[in-house]
């Protein structure tokens, strides 16, 4: 992960243009992929084979969101490809692709132009090759459905037959792209290209990689963050049948074996003496107390409108609340893993990562090689959610392969994953609002105390406020004349990572719930108040109104039920959700129905948008009603799905997704579905119970 994450967050489309290196350079693909002579490969993103097959190189990770299908659609649109002949292949990271990090809901935004241009380059070459062969003017020819057609004579030639000739022509640098009105692939819903292999067991994820002669490894890591192995006794581990060696790796100790099971058993038998390091006394209660203490001091101002906090003094009435969220783990279904094979002067890595280019850098450093000597094979990925930008398992696999002189697959257990993740930060938020004499909100202040992800990763310039803490709070969309958002960055030392929608995951909850408290204090309907305060924000307002209408906002509900609404913008898209909940006498919350409206600008594949809204809602709902990582004695208390649970199918609400495409530039979809769900549900619970929900997960007190 690099500093481009910030660019993704702010402007994926703009950032993307700078990410792709070498797309113009003729011959790049040949240099990278050693393409056959009779295959057309005008750029790094596609190949047209003599049999007419179009292979689209996917320079982003397929985390399950259908990114690879959508990227192939962008190529097919301009190429006028026959979709039945389109295949996808993971790009091997290298200079032709630049940074292949997949995050910030930015894949389509960053490759929106490069992929269409790649398709258009190939189309131009194929048309020219046909025109040359027929000795007609190229403007008399057109491409359609995998063929070039000369309408006047009725002649036609398939792309496969033209590929070899087209490959000899000079590649046009910047061919004309279609207008939106001409799109006939973008906006449609072809079946995902990765689906078939995912229903018959043939899909190859990281843990499914098999390299001849490979060993399997399990790594014991210090249960306390920042601790390290002082010494270890391998004798008992080596007694386990199948265990072949025990090896120090980084701050931990690895057991290498002929099977994963033997490696796990050997690791259980291993005796390690740990130096637990400086965090051995850390616990959640102390972290929370420190946050509360710090919240009494002013912080760094990240946004100020009007007189800011000073306007509270003149308000007719003020309200105040503290909102808190816990640390969260990602728990993708596929545990962290990597397979590496280090040989003299070369290294191959097979890894389910969100950053193939990052894996290449990390593997090169660990192997003591130049990045060019490292070949990274991206496998399918059993869920990302931000967890897989880290490369520590890649480093483990490379070091162990080097030590063992054999290919090695490192697989973390679920317990390793829960207890050694990089976590969504816990945050503490002090909010105040001032109401005028008529009840209208006149002032809003939000003081955030949070450990910063970007701070911890060293991404910030001297004095720069940590955007990974205030994004989604400082851009409060409401027309309140005096606003002040402050940040106090304090890091207790728990390792942090990007977690689906990053700061919006907590700040949408905090701000949208406090806005409901403001509405309550003003005696206003929370939907009507939002509409009024969003007059200058048409895209927010449009999704808000659509969700409210489709949900039947205002219709009566039984006494034990409540309805809540929230709206949020992030990653270039706007999402509103209405949740209906039922609260049992004992306080148990059941979410019955969620209505979601999304404006993600231009839609590439409507069903992928729907599936990502469903996914974002359910991932966010798991966290809102169940998710909490707590720390005792420097260790994560939770260890597996029994104590870090997720939503199950019997708890899954009815979900309705309504698309409100705006024709604006394409927005992200992987993350924007998540932020509104926690506040929509919390606001619904507050309506049902009469008590605001100021701490997550709901029911935490």
């Amino acid at each position, binding site marked *: 992960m690099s500093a481009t994450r910030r660019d993704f967050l702010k402007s994926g489309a703009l950032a993307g243009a700078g990410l792709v290196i070498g797309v113009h350079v003729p011959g790049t693909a040949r240099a990278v992929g050693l393409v056959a002579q009779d295959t057309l490969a005008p750029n790094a993103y596609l190949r047209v084979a003599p049999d007419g097959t179009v292979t689209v190189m996917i320079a982003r990770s397929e*985390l*399950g*969101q*259908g990114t690879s299908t959508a990227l192939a659609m962008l190529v097919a649109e301009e190429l006028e490809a026959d979709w039945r002949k389109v295949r996808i292949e993971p790009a091997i990271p290298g200079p032709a692709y630049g940074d292949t990090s997949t995050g910030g809901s930015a894949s389509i935004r960053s490759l929106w132009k490069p992929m269409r241009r790649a398709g258009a380059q190939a189309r131009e070459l194929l048309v020219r090759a046909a025109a040359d062969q027929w000795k007609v003017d190229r403007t008399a020819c057109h491409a359609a459905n995998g063929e070039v057609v000369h309408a006047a004579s009725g002649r036609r030639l398939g792309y496969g037959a033209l590929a070899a000739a087209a490959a000899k022509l000079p590649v046009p640098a910047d061919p004309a792209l279609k207008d939106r009105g001409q799109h006939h692939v973008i906006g449609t819903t072809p*079946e*995902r290209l*990765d*689906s*078939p*292999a*995912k*229903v*018959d*067991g*043939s*899909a*190859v*994820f990281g*843990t*499914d990689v*098999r390299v001849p002669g490979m060993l*399997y490894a399990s790594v014991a890591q210090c249960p306390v963050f920042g601790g390290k192995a002082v010494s270890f006794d391998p004798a008992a581990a080596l007694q386990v*049948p199948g265990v072949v060696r025990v090896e120090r790796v980084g701050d931990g100790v690895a057991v290498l074996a002929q*099977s*994963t*099971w033997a490696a*796990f058993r050997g690791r259980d038998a291993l005796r390690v003496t740990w130096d637990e390091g400086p965090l051995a006394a850390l616990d959640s209660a102390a972290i929370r107390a420190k946050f509360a203490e710090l919240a009494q001091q002013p912080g760094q101002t990240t946004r100020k409108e009007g007189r800011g906090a000073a306007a509270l003094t003149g308000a007719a009435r003020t309200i105040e609340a503290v909102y808190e969220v816990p640390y969260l783990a990602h*728990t*993708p*279904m*596929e*545990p962290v893993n990597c397979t590496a094979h280090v040989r003299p002067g070369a290294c191959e890595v097979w890894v389910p990562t969100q950053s193939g280019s990052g894996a290449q850098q990390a593997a090169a450093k660990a192997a003591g090689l130049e990045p060019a000597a490292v070949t990274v094979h991206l496998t*399918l*990925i*059993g*869920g*990302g*959610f931000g967890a897989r930008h880290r490369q520590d398992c890649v480093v483990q696999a490379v070091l162990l392969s080097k030590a063992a002189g054999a290919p090695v697959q490192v*697989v973390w*257990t*679920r317990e390793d994953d829960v207890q050694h993740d990089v976590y969504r930060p816990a945050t503490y938020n002090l909010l105040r609002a001032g109401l005028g004499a008529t009840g209208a909100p006149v002032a809003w202040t939000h003081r955030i105390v949070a450990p910063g992800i970007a701070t911890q990763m060293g991404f910030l310039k001297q004095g720069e406020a940590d955007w990974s803490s205030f994004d989604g709070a400082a851009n409060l969309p409401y027309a309140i004349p005096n606003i002040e958002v402050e940040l106090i960055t304090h890091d207790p030392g728990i390792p942090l990572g990007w977690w689906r929608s990053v700061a919006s995951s907590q700040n949408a909850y905090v701000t949208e719930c406090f806005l409901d408290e403001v509405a309550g204090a003003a005696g206003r309907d929370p939907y009507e108040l939002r509409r009024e305060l969003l007059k200058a924000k048409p895209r927010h307002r449009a999704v808000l109104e659509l969700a409210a209408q489709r949900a039947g906002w205002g219709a009566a509900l039984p006494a034990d039920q409540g309805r809540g609404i929230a709206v949020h913008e992030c990653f270039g898209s706007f999402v509103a959700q209405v949740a209906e909940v039922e609260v049992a006498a004992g306080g148990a919350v059941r979410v019955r129905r969620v209505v979601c409206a999304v404006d993600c600008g231009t839609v590439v594949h409507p*069903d992928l948008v729907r*599936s990502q809204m*469903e*996914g*974002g*809602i*359910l*991932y966010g709902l798991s966290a809102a009603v169940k998710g909490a990582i707590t720390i005792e004695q420097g260790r994560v208390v939770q260890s*597996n*799905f*029994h104590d870090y649970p*997720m*939503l*199950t*199918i*019997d708890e*899954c609400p*009815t*979900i309705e997704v309504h698309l409100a495409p705006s024709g604006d530039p394409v927005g992200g979809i992987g993350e924007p579905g998540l932020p509104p769900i926690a506040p929509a549900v919390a606001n619904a619970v507050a309506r049902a119970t009469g008590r605001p929900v100021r701490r997550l997960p709901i029911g935490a007190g």
Partner: protein
Amino acid sequence: MAAIRLIVNGRTHALDVDPGTPLLWVLRETLGLTGTKFGCGAGLCGSCTVLLDGEPARSCQITALQAADASITTIEGLSPDRTHPLQQAWLAEQVPQCGYCQSGQIMTAAALLAKNPDPSDADIDRALSASLCRCGTYPRIRRAIHRAAKGGAR
């Protein structure tokens, strides 16, 4: 080590494996049937679900010895060519996102349909409530099982 007889997808294998090894690892690493997934190692997530004499079983929680001589069906054995009504329905509803849990979901659903050819939402929820999906495909899983009950045609 005495050979253990495993009958997987209709084929009989005599295997020299530690009889205490969980079936999951024998399937994945000895037999190369990697469609059955490791998710939690504790019988909590359902990613490793296979059919044991037609019943859904957590292959991370049963040993090779316990599975010996039973008829084991994995995702690879559900149909030779992706034509099982559940597989067809899964594609029609575009269920998978990351796909990692889907073998377990489909095998659990197969056991349900074998007993209850037209399950209600409540039946589905009951049968699949311990099959976790982190991507949030539950609404589509429900739809796909209903579709499969009607034949699964796309």
